[in-house]
């Protein structure tokens, strides 16, 4: 049976199901339980259901919140750490770069770190430079971690359940603009394996690989370009950027011979830089022209909506860039 759930509800359901199954699963973070009940209401109701042993409110101390996850996971639990905003993970960055990511490799597999770090990222409602960033690319060059960035409620639930049981740390990017969006989610148990992309829209003329919320922007742009120019655009949502499903991308490229990557993070050494390099290294001869990267400007994410629109890719800007590229 399938119902429509919001992305936030889907995440909540994933946590609920895993917490029911395994008392070792717990959520820890600022205001996730009593009181504010989750800054974006993702965990609302879970405290009432699971109580203070599985839903744990903390002082404002991101470093130690992350440490709660690392330490508990070291001794065999399955913690979910929530940073209230993805941007705050910078405060606890050492815990990821030098601790969590390295535990398994340093200990020569004596210890594995079953740890999810949930990061509500991206821009919404002009929360500004310190509350809107898309930091995926900063984590991409850290060995030892996986990075998920689900777009649909279906994927949000399936990937989170997979992450909760995954034996390496998972940086789990949620996009604030997605929380309230609805989509079908089956009641039956399922998980989504890492490294398997989703074809969000099929097409034969051009391949777009889009990250996080930009999948939706790409879909809108594709629709417009279909209507305006009868272009058939294929939109690929990698779902996890580490590991990255290069195979699915390759298949698409062999059909379209054209690739664009869209992300909300900034372009310089962004997620697109890695994907672009991978594509060129592996499918050079299939490409009609170099892979194009569409990304945010090399700036802060400004609070002003007009400035924000100038900085972050949106459907109009994407349409225009594609039109320019294909000289339509």
């Amino acid at each position: 049976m399938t119902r429509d759930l919001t992305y936030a509800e889907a995440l909540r359901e994933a946590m609920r199901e895993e917490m029911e199954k395994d008392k070792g699963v717990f959520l820890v973070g600022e205001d996730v339980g009593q009181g504010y009940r989750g800054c974006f209401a993702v965990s609302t109701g879970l405290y009432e259901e699971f109580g203070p042993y599985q839903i744990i409110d903390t002082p404002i101390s991101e470093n130690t919140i992350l440490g709660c996850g690392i330490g508990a996971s070291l001794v065999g639990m399955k913690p979910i750490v929530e940073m209230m905003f993805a941007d705050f993970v910078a405060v606890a960055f050492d815990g990821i770069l030098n601790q969590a990511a390295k535990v398994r490799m340093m200990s020569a597999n004596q210890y594995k770190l079953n740890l999810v770090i949930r990061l509500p990222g991206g821009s919404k409602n002009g929360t500004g430079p310190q509350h809107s960033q898309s930091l995926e690319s900063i984590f991409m060059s850290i060995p030892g971690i996986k990075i998920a960035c689900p777009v649909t409620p279906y994927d949000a639930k399936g990937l989170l359940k997979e992450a909760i049981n995954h034996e390496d740390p998972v940086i789990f990017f949620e996009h604030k603009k997605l929380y309230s969006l609805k989509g079908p989610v089956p009641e039956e148990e399922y998980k989504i394996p890492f490294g398997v992309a989703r074809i969000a829209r099929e097409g034969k003329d051009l391949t777009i690989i889009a990250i996080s919320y930009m999948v939706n922007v790409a879909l809108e742009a594709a629709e417009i370009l279909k209507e305006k120019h009868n272009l058939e655009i294929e939109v690929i949502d990698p779902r996890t950027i580490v590991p990255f499903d290069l195979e699915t991308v390759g298949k698409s490229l062999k059909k379209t011979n054209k690739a664009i990557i869209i992300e909300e993070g900034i372009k310089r050494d962004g997620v697109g830089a890695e994907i672009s390099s991978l594509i060129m290294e592996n499918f050079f001869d299939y490409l009609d022209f170099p892979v194009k990267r569409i990304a945010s400007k090399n700036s802060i994410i400004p609070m002003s909506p007009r400035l924000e629109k100038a900085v972050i890719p949106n459907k109009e800007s994407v349409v225009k860039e594609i039109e320019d590229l294909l000289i339509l």
Partner: protein
Amino acid sequence: MKIEESKKLQFLEKMIFIRQFEYKIIDFARTGKIYGSVHLCVGEEACAVGTGFAFKKEDYILPTHRGHGQAIARGTDPKKLLAEISAKETGLCKGRVGSMHFFDKENNIVGCQGILGAQFPIAVGVGLAINLRKEDSIAACYFGDGTSNQGLFYEGMNFASIWDLPILFICLNNLYGMGTHYKKTCKIDIYEKAKLFGIKTDTADGNDVEEVYEKTLKLSEYIRKNKKPGLIELYTYRWLGHSALDSRPYRPKEEVEEWIKKDPIKRYEEKLLKEGIPVEEIDAVKASVEKQIEETAKFAEESPFPEFTKDMEI
């Protein structure tokens, strides 16, 4: 300490102004004229005004994420501030950052903090510079009760203590950090933490503007003279939600009502009346505020939105 009548009226005026300013933001927000996260300080006006008036022009200020009042009391042009919060070109930072991260160099406001705790190391750097250059200024570092749980708070106090830095740590203890009561997050009074570091401390009724002013002034002068840090903890309460239009009911209704009874403005107005200040003067203050607020709002509303410029990319 004897406070002149004219100053008292200024206190009152600024407090009323700040409150009206915050309510104007709610108006703006309701009609979609405000962008981004906005944290209001209604109920905490005496803290802002009592501290703000205690500084000198050359002092450096680090306000919190709930910093409108702190900035206005300091001298920030409220027109530019409201324009900033309304994402306008004429804003303090050209509408780029809004309520939570504005800078105001004219008034030595070296930046508000959207990242709780990040103000402490920066305040240390400012204090260090003051000492290295043998300036007479002090650095005023505001923070909330919740923020005092960041490890950076302790590091900041430690550096201030061992290097004798002229930093005034100002804690606005409004009992909560978002939905969480301070008591759930730490067993120690905040001023006690500072005492441990040998930092001179004081506490004050944060709803009594004169007490806040006098104690802040005294501590500032101590800091200025002795080149040593100080900390003052102000007990107060925010009447409204954590952010502008938020109204989650995590606080007992009675508690909120109790604190509204301690309204720092009403209380001060009554005190001034009792002291013999004519009601006409107080009414004049109110009328003046009303006019200023309208002008402020008009300025913000009529200002243009900014365009993206090349200097925004580095």
